[in-house]
């Protein structure tokens, strides 16, 4: 755990340097006709004239005070901008992930129970499709059909439940596809174990055997995969937020990079790193909850 903390710290500092290399923000924020003098003043104002190590020192000390600087674009503290954008992304991620886990368990367990049966085939097709479909294409196609064609769903924007339908459907494909395979595999392994035979001999109902006896034993690999997918969500959500116009972290990130808003980019990276770190701790706790053998080592 200590190691992963240092990893993420290393990453943040790495990004600091990288971001500085994307060019001079003055070019973007000042009109082209601005004089050299104006540029100098701009740079001085934002501390960009100082040698890079001095800038880094300033960044580090500010970080220690949890001050991530001000956004160049909006003139507000960067941390505020980031924390405003995060809930949107988190909500979308949470809803999608919960749905993905529930659906994949339902279908995956049944597929494991009746291998080569209809559910198994459906599961295989869905998972292959989910892993292969480019999410932006699915998004645009669905928009064509349901928004433009049938006028059933909005093309973009946030709001009531109806605005969630398409983004969630697009975002859920990949995690569902991966999870279904993992669930099926893990449950099949569990079902082959001797304790399932004991449970049958006890007269337990089939549903209980699947969802109580087998599933709990299968849960570790499922949780591991779900955890990895959740972190990777930020990738997919960049595209979904961009297409559907959701003001989340992904969209913020693209904008900030294109606009060379250093402070915001750094802030996003720092907050994301912290989030990932905390998330991993939560996953470890869940492990211990699920498997007593880990608990009582």
């Amino acid at each position, binding site marked *: 755990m200590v190691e992963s903390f240092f990893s993420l710290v290393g990453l943040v500092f790495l990004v600091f340097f990288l971001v500085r290399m994307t060019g001079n923000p003055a070019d973007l924020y000042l009109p082209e006709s601005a004089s050299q003098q104006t540029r100098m003043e701009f740079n001085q104002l934002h501390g960009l004239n100082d040698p890079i190590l001095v800038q880094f020192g300033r960044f580090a000390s500010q970080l220690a005070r949890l001050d991530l600087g001000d956004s160049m674009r909006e003139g507000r503290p960067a941390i505020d901008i980031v924390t405003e954008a995060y809930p949107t992304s988190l909500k979308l991620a949470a809803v999608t992930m919960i749905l993905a886990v529930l659906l994949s368990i339902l279908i995956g367990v049944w597929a494991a129970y009746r291998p080569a049966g209809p559910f198994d085939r459906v599961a295989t097709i869905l998972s292959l499709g989910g892993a292969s479909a480019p999410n932006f294409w699915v998004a645009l196609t669905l928009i064509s059909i349901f928004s433009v064609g049938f006028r059933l769903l909005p093309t973009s924007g946030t709001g009531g439940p109806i605005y969630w339908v398409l983004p969630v459907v697009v975002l859920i494909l990949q995690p569902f596809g991966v999870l279904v395979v993992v669930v099926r595999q893990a449950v099949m392994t569990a079902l082959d174990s001797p304790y399932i035979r004991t449970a049958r001999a*006890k007269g337990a109902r089939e549903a209980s055997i699947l969802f109580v006896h087998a599933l709990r034993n299968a849960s570790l690999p499922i949780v591991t995969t779900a955890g990895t997918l959740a972190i990777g969500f930020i990738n997919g959500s960049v595209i979904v937020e961009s297409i559907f116009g959701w003001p989340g972290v992904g969209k913020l990130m693209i904008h900030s990079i294109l606009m060379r808003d250093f402070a915001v980019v750094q802030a996003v990276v720092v907050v994301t790193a912290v989030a990932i770190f905390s998330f991993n701790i939560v996953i470890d706790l869940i492990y211990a909850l699920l498997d007593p053998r880990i608990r009582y080592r």
Partner: protein
Amino acid sequence: MNEDTVLEIKDLTVEFRSGNECVKAVNGISYCVKAGETFAIVGESGSGKTVSTMALMRLLPVPPAVIKASQITFKGQDLLNMPRNDWRHVSGNKISMVFQDALAALNPVYSVGWQISEMFRIHRRLDRAEIERRTVDLLSKVGIPEPRQRLHEYPHQLSGGMRQRAMIAMAIALKPDLLIADEPTTALDVTIQAQIMGLLKDLRDETGMSLILITHDLGVVAETADRVAIMYAGRIMETGSIRDVLNTPTHPYTLGLLNSRPQAHRRGEPLQPICGSPPNLAHIPSGCAFFPRCQHADALCREMTPTGVEVSPGHFVACHSIKTRTQFAAAKQNSSPVPV
């Protein structure tokens, strides 16, 4: 048919089919178990002793397994064609099973108490307090110290002997009429073995339940069983009371088994194993399965599968050569096919 016959099995066959292959794990066995008695099934690995009881308990995956029998009755009820839902009420409740390796057979992620009390949750309507009370009682009945504490412990936290006791507690929770114990002591030390077998005996005496004991260990059988069946290559070779079979073993296989044990009074002498190895169950030849390894065999043994010959009341042997052997010069010529 006796009124105190608890279980009766006739012509049970279990095959495993995959592709073109057909493995005959159990090849037409019949036996019965009376109330309160301990019936031991003895045989080496691959003899079909475990598979036959798994088939009975519906624990075999049905394709690839194919189970056939002319009769399986439990206290008068037909088990063979009993619908799944009805069977679920019998399994664990009236007929219960204890498995060999308790660490593997117990679910690692649930506490021992949870698994035992699951029996009540499945088959009885009781409130939680009552269930907990009964579970604690069971744990102490099987000789587990500090039962209240053990309730919340997990299988990996208990010792081998404790785990086996816990499994037994689970199996007898609902006071079944018949308990099947599949090699209950094989994975344990000798001293623990004795304790577990003693426990089973006590439980049997106390509740009057019948016990089917599956084992390869003749010593365990001698101490605990009333009657015994010797299985080889999916068939029963000899069956009868303990006294009959162990004192006057008749089938060449039984003789071989008894002779091959290390015995104190023959110390210093070389061991006498049975030559050869068990047959490939996918290609069982006609005739007696033991033929290739038998010292008393003749041509008839290769042609015809022997049926049970009653050499003395209740003592059946499936062998052609009895008549030609001096031990039973006065054996009757009857061939009653199945002991009843």
